């Protein structure tokens, strides 16, 4: 218990990767000429996606997960509930139905970058997590987008489903995560040893550079906040902790460990800014893309990285770990 208490007290803000994000944010806000070339950004995200998948795959090879189908069904249900919840809250905030559905799709789906920082957090805190969490990450990309599109369109008629499914299932993030997972699972830890220096040992260094760029991008979207709907800004700040609670509840239902619960809470609290915008642009072009991106990327992503993770850690500790009073 002492070990846990010590980790709870350690502020995540001291993690160098978070400081890299703040550096990028500051550089962007100060209009510095700092730029990460697009090809480098692509390479960094490619390494991160493969590494997250591989780590899960290696662990799966070591300790095969049981009852995966049931767990995945529960996690999909969580994605649907989160999207409906976001939609209902945004409608209450008087957002037009199409925009409410589009923003809900982003918040029902998940952010791989937030998950990557979450993995760095639980690793640093010494919290083990279930090997199939990366699988949940892949699965959770989908229900939010599908439900959000159905809500925006008021049904499934006339939608380019083939194109959409292709975009979602064969988009680079799902493809690389699943590909990494399978490669890690087939090869196991010993088989992966020759490439571990790049994908496993360099993980945090790559994440640091990636977050530097994310800081620059987030700063760009923060500029778009002016004149935006105040309700959406409030939603982008308040939805993550509320959704993290749903994630913790789901984790309790699945019997996840403390690290697993923290990662599922982080996934629930995160908002997609890659897969969802692309799919929504195809299926619901009349929705305002800047609204969702500003909320997901300009507010929720920085919130989750800087404040959310330590907060969700406290919440997991209080709800799942701490003994009941008395």
């Amino acid at each position, binding site marked *: 218990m002492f070990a846990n208490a010590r980790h709870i007290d350690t502020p995540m803000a001291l993690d160098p990767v978070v400081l890299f994000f703040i550096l990028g944010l500051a550089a962007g806000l100060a209009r510095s000429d700092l730029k990460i070339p697009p090809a480098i*950004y*692509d390479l960094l995200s490619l390494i991160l996606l493969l590494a997250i998948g591989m780590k899960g795959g290696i662990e799966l090879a070591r300790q095969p997960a049981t009852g995966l189908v049931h767990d995945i069904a529960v996690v999909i249900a969580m994605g649907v509930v989160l999207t409906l919840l976001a939609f209902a809250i945004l409608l209450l905030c008087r957002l037009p139905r199409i925009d409410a559905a589009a923003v809900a799709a982003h918040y029902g789906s998940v952010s791989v970058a937030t998950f990557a920082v979450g993995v760095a957090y639980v690793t640093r805190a010494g919290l083990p997590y279930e090997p199939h969490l990366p699988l949940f990450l892949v699965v959770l990309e989908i229900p939010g987008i599908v439900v959000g599109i159905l809500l925006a369109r008021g049904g499934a008629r006339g939608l380019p489903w083939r194109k959409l499914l292709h975009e979602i299932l064969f988009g680079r993030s799902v493809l690389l995560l699943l590909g990494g997972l399978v490669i890690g699972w087939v090869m196991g830890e010993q088989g992966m040893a020759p490439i571990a220096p790049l994908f496993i040992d360099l993980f945090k260094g790559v994440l640091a550079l990636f977050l530097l760029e994310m800081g620059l991008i987030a700063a*760009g979207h923060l500029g778009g906040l002016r004149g935006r709907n105040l309700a959406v800004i409030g939603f982008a700040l308040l939805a993550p902790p509320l959704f993290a609670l749903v994630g913790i509840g789901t984790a309790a239902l699945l019997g996840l460990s403390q690290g697993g619960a923290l990662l599922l809470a982080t996934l629930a609290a995160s908002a997609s800014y890659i897969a969802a915008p*692309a799919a929504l*642009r195809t299926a619901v072009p*009349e929705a305002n893309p800047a609204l969702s*991106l500003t909320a997901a990327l300009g507010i929720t992503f920085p919130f989750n990285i800087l404040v959310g993770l330590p907060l969700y850690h406290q919440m997991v500790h209080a709800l799942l770990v701490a003994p009941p009073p008395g």
Partner: protein
Amino acid sequence: MIETSTRSLLTIVTEAGLEAPLAAEFDARGLGYTVTDARGRGTRGRRASQWAHSGNVRFEIVCDPGTAEALAGHLHKQYFAHYAMILWMQEVAVLRADKFV
């Protein structure tokens, strides 16, 4: 004096997310094109090419004037309402006119 022919150059600047669907449309019409990354500022804000999803692309198509006008009309109808897209046409003198139908 080199012999040249007159064709239309249709230039389209739009959001990067439209690259694949537009390329598919041009392929289906048998039109060749050049596509490059682009960045700039317009009525829908700054479009930085540093990040794939916030960037712009610039399509250039050389074809006969009738085809260019028909294509411009189609793009206007299909994309102008909901996507960031601008396009313009100009007359150009080309060599190897048979390549541009």
